[in-house]
Every structure is written in C-alpha cells, then in structure tokens.
C-alpha cells in the first residue's frame, strides 16, 4: 500500500504546473475542492489579518493619523466581511468537504459538480469584493452595511460588497444542500445516524442553518442592490422606505451565521478531545441534542443585535430571554468535553492544546454573550468595544482556534504530512497569549466609553493604555499565524509522508490513505458501531470489514463548466456595478449572464455519466 502511494505521488510531482492547474480548475473531487477552499480561505485570512493590523496600528496611540477616516472605514468593513465570509466560512467548508465524506464512508459528495461550482463562486466572489480596493475604494459602511449609510455611500464600494457577497453566498448555499444530501443518502452500510461522528453531525446541522439563513441575506442584498443600482426605494425614507427592514433581514441571516461559524468547530473539538483522551465522547446523544437546540434557538434570537433600535420592551425581553436560553445547550457541551477528558489519558500535543485553550476562551465569549443578551445592560455594551471583545472571543477563541485545531488534526489526512510539533506549540502559545492580550482589555475599553468603529480615540479619556496593550497583542497573534504558515511550507518541503492513522484515531477517516485516493476506498467499509475504527481496533483486527467484494467504482467526471459559469457571473457582477456609470457596461452584464447560462445549457444537454475504475485497475494498485 505505502509503495503504491509514494509511486503515485512521484507521478504527481512530475506533472507540469499547467497540468496541475488544469486539474484543479476542472476537479470535482471533494478533497481537491477542500484544498481550494482552504487555500482560498487562507489567502483571505491573511488579507483580513493585514486589515486587522492596520486597525490596531491606527489605534496604537490617541488621535493617530496613520490612515485617513474614509480609508479606516473601508478597512474595518473589509476586515469584518473578509474574515466572516471569505476566511472563516470557506476554511470550515474546506474541512467539511475533506473530512465529512471520509467519516461516513462516501466516495464523494452527492453533487460533485455543484461542489466545484460552489468553490469557484466563493473564490471569484471574494476576488470581486477585493477588486474594489483597486477601483475607487472598498465598501465603507461596516460589514453590517446598515441602510441608509450603505445606500448613500458614494462610489462603488458598497456595490462591490453586494455583488461579491451575492456570489459567495450562492456558493455557500449550494454547499449546504450538497452536504445534507450527502449525509442522508451516501452513508456506508451500517453507518446509522446515531453512529455518525460528531463532526459529521455538526456539518449536517450547520448545513441546515446555511439552507435557512442564507436566503434572507440573498434577499437583503437584492434589495440593497436594487436601491443602489436601479433606483428602488426600499430604504429611501422619503419614498416610504424603511431602513429597519435591512437590519432585520441582515440579522435573520446574521445570527444563524455565527452558529454556522461555531458549530462545525464544536464538532472538530469533540473529535479532538475524544481522540487525544483515548475516550469516547461523553454524552454523545446529549451533544447532538444540544447542537440541534443551539441551531433551533439560533433562529429566534436575531433581534438581540437590535436592542437599541427601539423595538419596545416586549420584543426586547423576549429576544433577550431566548438568547440567554442558548447558554444551556452550550453549557452542556462545555461540561461534556470536560467529562470526556476526565479519567482519560490526555495527550497534550498542539492539536489538543488548541482544544484546551478553546475552553476558557470560548467560555469567556459565552459569558459575555449572556451579558450582552441582558437587554438593559446591553444599552451600555451595544456598539462598543465590549461587543468587539465578546464576538472576537467567540469567533477567534472559538472558530479560529477550532480551525487551527482542525487543520492541525486533519492536516495529515488532507495534505499527507504531519505538521511539526514544535512549530505548532510556538504557534499556539504566541497566538493564545496575543489573543487574550488583544481582546480581554477591550471589554473594559468599551465600558469606559469607546464605541466600536472609531477611527480615532481622543487624548485624556483614559483609553490610551488599553488600546496600546490591545495593539501589541494583535502583533503577537500575527506572529503565531506566520509561524503556522512557515510550518505548513516546512512540512510540505521537508516533512515525511504521514501514516494512515497518525493519532491512533477512532473514526472512519483514519482508515484511508493519507491523503486518500480520489475514490477514497477500494471497498466501502461496513460500519459496526460508533467510533467504528476504535471498535475494530479493540474488538476486531484493527481493519474495517469491507461491505462488498471488490468491484468497479463509479466516479464523476471532471468539468471546466463550474469555473466558466463562475467567471460568467463574475463578469456580470462587474456589469451590474458599473452600468450606473455607463450603459455600455450592460454588455458585460448580459455577456456574463450569457456565458453562465450557456455553460448551464451545455451542462444540462450533455450526458455526463461519469467513469468507472475497473476491478483490474484497483487490483493493480492493491497491496
């Protein structure tokens, strides 16, 4: 087996750059698409990180003029938008894409073509959004783009925001449906719902959230687009419009969105705690139940972002209490994780360190979450650095740490190398200390009278020290990220091939090669229980039992069409943005649409039946 793997990788190394590029442009393989998501997400993560550093340099000292006020607003807007839509979510989608099919014993996802379309829409949407930097300025109305500031913002910045997010959002919606169908229809024999690993479960529930949350954003963006580009009056108060509609639509999407960001990493952490404690997850059923409850409640609390809007005390308190209720299932999860480690054999390597660091960090984030949910207290917290601190504690302390943990844990499976442990520990400690330095002090800054999105703070307001500490912490975080990138490059160049199961794992993904062949398994495994690999290790011979004899494998064909479709929409997006300046841009608008529709037509007319890997080929590669 190992010989076969190294042979094929030698083959891979010999391929020209052009061939590799073409391979990725046309791929429908879930693992390669995961690579695209992770690389794309990492690129935007670095971009968003640079924007964060600009913010912290500007706020290093009072009344600083490192950047201008207008540019500062562009930076904060792009930092938020990039980190949420183009960094955190795509990397999570990448992890789901890579791992979820392996965990349930599928050869690919249900709709490989749509999967490819989703990733290209994300990449081109992200590029479209960032093009704004070079053509007259980025969006500057905050990542929440509250109307009428967003509808009246001059230039094309907010137009780019609308079109970029529309593309990326459509891609995400496709992925959500895709994962749902995959998990429902393509589980290996014996993989019942109650035997699915928790990461697959959280992928499943996250996908439901995506399915029901993103359409609200789609509509909101359409309304914004119509107002800005076609003279509609949704948010034009003079013509009877109502700006609060935007806030509702945005947060009906936006609040589930934060659970879309956190639930997958809850799943990843569950796997990590279990593996490195050598214990099965404590309270598996209640973990699933808690996840569902979080998702369900997550839809009914959006208006807690709007306590100061003036909705009245009845609505405010209903949403306030509903929000507090989310603490209950979250608490269940935290204590189940602690109980998983209790009595276990806890190994403190870098993947586990992220998970352990996550517990206090996220608990603080959850605590402050309850505090900001307390409506009358929120009149003080709202729109201040307290809120900034709170959501960075959940998104950085939860999602980003989860991404680091998940990447460290699954790196061998996704890229075929184990990350260097020493560099991993350095990354963790610099990032962890930097993170708390940056954000803990911000709780106090907020209450001391510093609203968020402030370009400058004035001298002699007692805010200097806090901001200075915060800025230093941000640089420590940057060091951590740089070390991680060095680590990734180092193991790519010098690292050894990873074994199939480097961590003594418990779940199905550790039974395939690292990285797996594109068909994942020669024979689909038969699942006999929860933690199926662990079960075979302790009660069987350590290998999965095949569910059927060796037979031909049917795999989908690659296609360039998803890329072409996405490019078409990208061009149409530019057409939408600039048709307000010059009617000639309608050519781009309709031209781009035509390209996409034509590609769709080709797709629906051609017979794409996939291809077979014959038994003989499989035998040739075997043993």
């Amino acid at each position, binding site marked *: 087996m190992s010989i076969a793997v190294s042979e094929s990788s030698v083959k891979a190394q010999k391929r020209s750059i052009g061939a590799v590029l073409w391979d990725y442009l046309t791929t429908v393989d879930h693992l390669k698409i995961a690579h695209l998501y992770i690389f794309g997400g990492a690129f935007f993560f670095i971009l968003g990180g640079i924007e964060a550093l600009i913010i912290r340099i500007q706020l290093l000292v009072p009344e600083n003029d490192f950047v*201008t*006020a*207008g540019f500062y*607003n562009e930076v904060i807007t792009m930092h938020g938008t990039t980190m949420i839509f183009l960094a955190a979510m795509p990397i999570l989608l990448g992890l789901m894409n890579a791992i979820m099919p392996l965990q349930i014993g599928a050869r690919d996802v249900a709709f490989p073509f749509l999967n490819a379309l989703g990733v290209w829409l994300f990449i081109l949407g992200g590029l479209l959004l960032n093009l704004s930097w070079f053509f007259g300025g980025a969006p500057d109305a*905050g990542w929440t783009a*509250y109307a*009428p*500031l967003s509808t009246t913002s001059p230039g094309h910045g907010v137009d780019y925001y609308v079109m970029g997010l529309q593309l990326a959002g459509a891609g995400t919606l496709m992925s959500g449906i895709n994962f749902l169908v995959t998990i429902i229809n393509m589980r290996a024999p014996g993989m019942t719902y109650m035997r699915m690993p928790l990461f697959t479960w959280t992928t499943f529930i996250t996908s439901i959230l995506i399915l029901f949350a993103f359409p609200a954003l789609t509509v909101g963006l359409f309304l914004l687009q119509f107002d800005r580009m076609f003279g509609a009056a949704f948010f034009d*108060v003079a013509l009877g*419009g109502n700006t*609060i509609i935007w806030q509702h639509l945005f947060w009906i999407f936006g609040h589930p969105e934060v659970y879309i960001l956190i639930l997958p990493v809850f799943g990843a952490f569950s796997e990590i705690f279990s593996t490195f404690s*050598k*214990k099965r997850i404590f*309270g*598996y059923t*209640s973990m699933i139940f808690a996840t569902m409850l979080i998702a369900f409640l997550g839809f009914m609390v959006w208006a807690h972002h709007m306590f*100061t809007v*003036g909705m009245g*005390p009845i609505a*405010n*308190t209903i949403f*306030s*209490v509903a929000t507090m*209720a989310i*603490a209950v299932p979250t*608490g*269940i999860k935290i*204590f*189940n994780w602690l*109980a998983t*480690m*209790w*009595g*276990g*054999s*806890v190994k403190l390597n870098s993947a586990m360190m992220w998970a352990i660091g996550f517990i*206090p960090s996220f*608990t603080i984030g959850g*605590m*402050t979450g*309850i505090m900001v949910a*307390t409506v*009358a*207290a*929120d*009149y*003080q917290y*709202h729109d*201040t650095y307290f809120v900034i601190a709170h959501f960075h504690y959940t998104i950085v302390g939860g999602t980003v740490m989860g991404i680091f943990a998940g990447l460290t844990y699954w790196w061998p499976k996704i890229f075929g190398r184990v990350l260097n442990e020493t560099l991993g520990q350095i990354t963790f400690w610099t990032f962890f200390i930097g993170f708390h330095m940056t954000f803990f002090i911000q709780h*106090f800054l907020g*209450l*001391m009278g510093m*609203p*968020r*999105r402030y*370009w*400058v703070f004035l001298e*002699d*307001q*007692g805010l200097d020290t806090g901001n200075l500490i915060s800025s230093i912490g941000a640089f420590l975080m940057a060091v951590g990220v740089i070390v991680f990138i060095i680590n990734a490059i180092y193991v790519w160049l010098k690292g050894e091939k990873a074994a199939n199961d480097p961590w003594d794992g418990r779940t199905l993904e550790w039974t395939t090669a690292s990285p797996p062949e594109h068909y994942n398994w020669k024979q689909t495994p038969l699942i006999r229980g929860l933690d199926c690999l662990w079960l075979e290790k302790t009660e069987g011979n350590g290998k999965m039992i095949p569910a059927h004899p060796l037979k031909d494998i049917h795999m989908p064909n690659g296609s360039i069409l998803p890329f072409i479709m996405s490019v078409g929409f990208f061009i149409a997006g530019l057409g939408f943005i600039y048709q307000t300046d010059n009617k000639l841009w309608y050519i781009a608008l309709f031209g781009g649409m035509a390209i996409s529709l034509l590609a769709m037509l080709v797709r629906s007319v051609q017979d794409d039946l996939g291809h077979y890997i014959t038994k003989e080929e499989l035998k040739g590669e075997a043993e």
Partner: protein
Amino acid sequence: MKGWMGKIKALALMSFMAVLLTGCGKENLTALVPKGYGAEESMKLIILTTVIMGGVFLVVIVVLAYVLIRFRRKKGQENYIPKQVEGSKTLETIWTIIPIILVIIMAVPTTLISFDLADASDSKDHINIDVTGNQYWWHFNYQDEDIQTSQDLYIPVGEKVYLNMISSDVIHSFWVPSISGKMDVNPENTNTMYIEAYEEGVYWGKCAELCGPSHSLMDFKVIVVSKEEYEQWVADMKNYDPEKDEPESAVAKEGKDLFEENNCMACHAIGSSPVEVGPNLTNFGNRTKIAGFKEPTKENLVDWLKDPEEIKPGNLMTGKYPQLNDDEAEKIAEYLMQLKVTDVTPESVNN
C-alpha cells in the same frame, strides 16, 4: 428579591471601589461610574451577570485545571486505555438544570429593568427635548421653550428629561455612558428615551452607530446644572434677541459682516430658529468644544473655518462657502467666540 439585591449592592460598592482604584476610565465618560438613572440600572445588571458568569467560569477553570494535572498522559502510559464511558444521566441533568436556574435568575431583573427604562407614560409631565442626529453633529430643540442648541445639551439635575430622537440622514446612536445607555436615532421613526442625571457636571456623549468617516468625532456634551441655573439658562436663551446684539469690539463687528457676506446664515441660525440645516450658534461662545471635540480656542476655530474637512472628514460644511483667508477667518472667529448669551456656562457648572 430585595434581600439579594442588597447583597448585590454591597458587592457592587466593593467592586466599584476596586475598579475606581485601578482606574476605570475618565469620570463623566465611563459607564463604570454611573451618575444617572439609566446607567445605574444597567450597572446593576452588569454586576449581577458578571458575578454569576464569573462563578461559572471559575467552575470550568477549576475542573479543566484538575483534569489537565490529574489525567495528563505520563511517560509509560502510552498504551494505557481508559474506560470508555458513554455518559451519565445524573451529571448531564445537573449541568442542564443549573444553567436553566441561572438563566431564570438573570432573566427576571432583566425584564423588570428593561420595562422600567422603556416606560414613557409620564412624558407629558417632564421636559421634552427633540434630538436630531446629523452627520456629524447633534441638534437639540427644547419643545416648550422655543430654544435650540447644538452639541451642548443643558438639563437640570435630578429631573427626568425625555428625548425624542430622529435622524435627518443616516442612523446615529445617542450615548452618554455615565448617565444612560444608548438608543438609536433612526431616520424613519422617533425613538423616545429618558435620562436623569444625579450630579451636576459636564458629561461626555458619543455617537455609537457608524455614520460615516467622522463617526468617531461626533461627540457632544450633556451639561447638568442645578434647577435654578437651568431656569436662568432657559430665560437667558429665550430672551436673547439677535437683532439687538451688536458686538462690542471692532474686529468682531467686521467678523459679523463677514459672517453675513459669506452667507453663513443660510445654514446657521443665531437666535431661535426651529429650522436647522447647520448647528445653531446662539450661545457659541460658551460651547464646550469646537466641532464637538476640539478645545474651544480661537486658533482651533480659525483652523476649522479655513478647512473643516481637515478636522472633520466628510462634514457637510466643507465647500459651502468661499475659501476664507487668515484675516477673514480670524475676524469671524472673534465674532463667534463672543456670542455668549448667558452666565450659565460649562465652567460655572464645575464650581
């Protein structure tokens, strides 16, 4: 409820002292030293939730630390396989029930206080002020008195003051941390809130909703004066007649002429005028700040008049009048700085 509220209050006092000693921001700006009704009510909830959540955090940390010390994999234990525990009904029930109880403990006072703060049933019996948020300044219209001010809001101490707030452009948010929590100022509907200050003084107010490039410079002041001073201030403001008011110095007179020549009146009123395009300048000489955040010196005013864009990017005054040279700006500044209508000033409050 009274019993534990008392304990909370004692705790609050203690933590106050602690925070005060370590420095919790600038007085009359920070929300951590409440000096008004709304801020005090919010502070109660802040302390209650902090204490409860701090307790939860402590439990988590203690358990985590114990686990890490006790169950860490040591040398020679590489092959040790722990017992595979599925779960525990009792434990799981415990950590479901306890959070529910904690949530209820927090939900009750939250509900009571938020209904209390939103109760506007007695607004007719109190001072009502219309607040208009503009990019990037605040307009205050005293409904019954026919008085308008900008940036400086004078209110009497210990009295409820109702604010009816609406925006003329984008969404702003009215926040005076030491006196009260914030409320959004929307363009399509009037939001009402009340504030009540316990101590005289000049309180710092801020805009808390992103409203454009100069969002961070949209500061204002709430000047809390004694009831007598307030009445005197109202009387002085009401009785002021701009027609009769001629500047004493020759420079100021020239400034006044220039003020008229450059058509500043198109936007700025001196004296009562309910129509507002730009800030009302009636009592300009007594303003706490220039442009909301610069010290009220003549040099700063000259700089402002010559190039407002440099000081407050994106403001609507830029480009509305001919470029002024040093001499003209000096004269107008001289004129504006002597516009003092009353002896009730921010400085007098502090004495």
